[in-house]
């Protein structure tokens, strides 16, 4: 009787298991993992810098999530693009040599604390945006600190000392991982800052060397990067060494951001990289775009930069 009951139990489990196993494949087609397509939406990429000429801007469109993506394929070539301020309108024309790029047709230096409006239209689609440019911004000093004592070891040359001074001055020759690079400025009335770091010497040797990185990781390294946005309440920013990958000349651009740029930077997809997709699904959210009728960024900033030359570690 015990054996019979045991057999009954085992049979029940086996039947239930068979039923479940029969439908247990978890392979999925890629198309099953996407949402409804939002292809064909205008993507606006326009960044104004105070005290600099009207910039080139880019008009692209979204592509279905399962489709292959390229800048060429996503470029919008027939857009009508205008930027207006104070009753004056500046027109743009498509760059015939670079799909999706639009060039200003008039000269204008971007003014601080001024409202600019963007309008883009293409094939019945219209996207608009507005930005209030920030006040002017200047880096007061560029320093190398002792990482143990946090005292100033050296004062680096800036571009005010000459266009090449930051790259050739002896005090600007910085050995990789040696000291802490810090820029100090007067914190203005801006919601936040963002730093861009660019390695200027194409082909310079790689200084980043870690046991836990492989060749694929090194191939992915780019010669430019952006920091996450930060508030810099004390008017200073330190450059972490993990943002430096190559030897040679580097320029650090510090941007004092408008609301649009700050909102996008703090919600941008760059900040979501490295997160789990669905596991941290709470953080897979739409960035804070500043474009109506499309997506993208129409923002402005005031910018200043410093430079230095990275020497390989001895």
């Amino acid at each position: 009787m015990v054996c019979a009951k045991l057999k009954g139990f085992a049979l029940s489990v086996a039947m239930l298991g068979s039923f479940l196993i029969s439908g247990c494949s978890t392979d999925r087609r890629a198309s099953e993992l996407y949402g409804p397509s939002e292809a064909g939406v205008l993507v606006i990429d326009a960044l104004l810098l105070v005290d600099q000429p009207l910039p080139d801007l880019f008009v692209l469109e979204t592509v279905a999530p399962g489709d292959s993506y390229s800048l060429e394929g996503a470029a919008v070539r027939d857009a009508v693009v205008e930027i207006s301020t104070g009753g004056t309108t500046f027109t743009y024309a498509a760059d015939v040599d670079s799909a999706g790029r639009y060039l200003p047709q008039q000269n204008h230096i971007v003014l601080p604390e001024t409202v600019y409006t963007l309008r883009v239209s293409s094939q019945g689609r219209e996207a608009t945006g507005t930005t209030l440019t920030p006040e002017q911004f200047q880096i007061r000093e560029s320093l190398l600190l002792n990482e143990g004592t946090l005292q100033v070891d050296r004062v680096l040359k800036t571009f005010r000392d000459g266009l090449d001074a930051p790259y050739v001055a002896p005090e600007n020759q910085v050995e990789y991982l040696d000291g802490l690079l810090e820029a100090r400025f007067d914190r203005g009335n801006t919601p936040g800052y963002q730093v861009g770091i660019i390695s200027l010497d194409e082909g310079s040797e790689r200084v980043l060397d870690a046991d836990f990185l492989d060749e694929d990781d090194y191939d992915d390294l780019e010669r430019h990067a952006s920091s996450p946005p930060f508030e810099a309440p004390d008017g200073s920013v330190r450059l972490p060494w993990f943002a430096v990958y190559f030897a040679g000349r580097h320029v650090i651009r510090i941007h004092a951001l408008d609301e649009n740029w700050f909102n996008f930077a703090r919600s941008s997809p760059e900040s979501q990289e490295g997160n789990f997709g669905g596991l941290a699904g709470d953080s897979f959210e739409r960035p804070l775009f500043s474009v109506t009728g499309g997506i993208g960024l129409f923002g402005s900033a005031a910018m200043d930069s410093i430079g230095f030359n990275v020497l390989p570690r001895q």
Partner: protein
Amino acid sequence: MWTLSKSHLREGSARMRCFREAILAIAIVVGGWVGNVEAATVSGFITDASNGESLPYANVVLEGGAVPMGTLTNVDGYFAVQKIPAGRYRFVASYIGYRSYLDSLTLEADEVIRIDVELEPQALLGAEVLVKADAYEEEKLIQPGFIVMEAATLEEFPALFESDVLRSLHLMPGIQAASDISTGLYVRGGGPDQTLILLDQIPLYNPSHAFGFFSTFNSDAIKDMSLHKGAYPASYGGRLGAVLDVRNRDGNRKEFQGTGGISLIAARMTLEGPVGKGSWMISGRRTYLDPILAAIRNDSTEVPAYYFYDLNAKLNLDLGAHDKVSFSGYFGRDDLNFDLDETSFINVRWGNVAVTGKWTHVFRPGLYGNFMVAGSQYESDTSLSLFDTPILFENSIRDLTVKGDLDYFANPKHSISGGFLATWYRFRFNQVFNQDEQLDLKEKPTLLSFYLQDNWQAHSNTQIRLGVRSNMFSDGSRFHVEPRLAISQQLSDHWRVKTAGGLYHQYLQLVTTEGFSGGDFWVPLDETVEPGRSVQGVVGLEWEPSPRYMLSVESYLTGFKNLVALDTKVAVDSEETKSDDVFVTGGTGHATGVEVFLNRRTGALTGWIGYTLGWTRRTFDELNGGKEFPPKYDRRHDASVVLDYRVGKWSFGGSVLYATGQAYTPASARYSLRSPGSQQYLKDDFLLPSQKNSARLLPYHRMDLNVKRRFRLFGSRAEAYLQVFNAYNRRNEWFVQYNADDPETDPDVVKMLPVIPTFGINFSF
């Protein structure tokens, strides 16, 4: 912002006055009742004769009067029957699974008798019938959504490496897990932060080891655990959803004994025994992964160093017929160290420490009190160095609690309980990047709570529990009154209907990353946001045609208000630390569903079938464009079948779980933007998220199996087990990973655990 100002001191003095006045009021009301004794009183403790452990909710009846009089013991095994007319009675103390105790009593008017009873565990009635002690019977009769599990029951479930309290609960209807490696509890549509988890009445803030793989509860140290899935009574508070109350063993008062076990990843040992007029217990567990990892580690193979341990200790002493004291402690820690290379490492440490001193006093036969002082500390430290760039996150919660509970057995119709809770918190969160301190948050709020409730036997078939709880929280000077109600009506011998409801508030918020629980931290909500609020209602119908079977159907509805979610769009060095800066606030939501539970409780084959049909939704103005969305743990269907079959020295167990796939946010397009800081395009394009959590993973299901055999090992009882987790190796989906590295790349689905067989041995002496 965080200093103690004079206004705080004035508020504190006012609260202390209020606190003293409330205690005095309770004492006067209760004392007035006590002073009116005109008839006899019988009181005492009911304990297990084999080990001296108290027996909660044992039945005590005095037969022979015009009307039988009786009561149930409280959670400490104490009972009191008052206002007994003089006469001859038969005293019966009974508890399922124990031999009943009978005695004859002749009571005079105003006579007070103390009877401490030791009940003998019942021997097996036959090979095919196993009767288990049914603890917390009273609570189950009146409270819907109430689950109790004894430690022995935990051992019966198929498990992953070791028996685990929280994993076992995932097998019950209405309770879900986020993933195979998570012990977080998602109860009736609520998140893990909405469940209060207590160990011997002390909250544990992150009760997990191994990044969520195991809970910090050592099943050998546990006496029992109870879970209110919702609408919990006034004696608890501070969470919007559920309460898990885990109680450790007191220790064997009769003889020295030990239990232990070895699994694939950890070893554990529990020792206990009598001391004077009391008992002691010490239980420890530690993983031995670290020497295994060290053996694997070499110059070409980097593996992290990791270990965890936990230690429970308890000492109980009887100071006399009316006084007991007990001291208990919990100490647990996880430590991970990973040296990536010369300039980079990761070090993560987290753990809980909790110590308690409790005094139990019988003021008068019908008035019983527990008073406790407890301190706990949770710390989580994460320090990284990436190419010589140091990054540090530290957070800690320390609290000091003074708590008192009084049980008054007024008469056979009314059992009144009341109490207070005062907790002083110290929260700290510190963040340092590249030797620049970016955030140093310190908060020191206090919480003061009072409660009063009456268990009223309104009619022979009707029980009503009416309660009220009041909370005062210093941050924001919050004061809330929370009514609670539970009604149970016996419709016939086999049918019972129950309903319960209440208002709940939550003042602390958990910030958690599901993939890594070591970084979880709690923060108090300050004056800039309203505390979370829920209104809960539960209705249930039970059918018990026999002691063997029970069928229950319950429906629940919860409305949430003032929910918060971490704002992930805050700048990395933001000094804005007010709650409305750190969190997205003003969220609302609801959870509703129906649970069906069929339980076979006795016999060689025991187990249950559970099914839940449920919905849960959230709405935040700043998320998903203000549209309602399901949280990821919204599972439409959730079913479980759990079976255990015993024959001779063998036992066979199996469980099958099924649940609707979790929600996730799919991508709806690809696009590209320049990196604004460098104003250059990156190699990768971006994925555009669609509506929040608008897609579903595949349904989750798995089967676990276990087989055990009892035998003798060097004269001691032992049990060997083999367990298979995910027996048919279904690779359930965990999350979807979109990689934009390659324009041609398809999305990946990261899967959960494969089939994992484990084995081990348990022993006792």
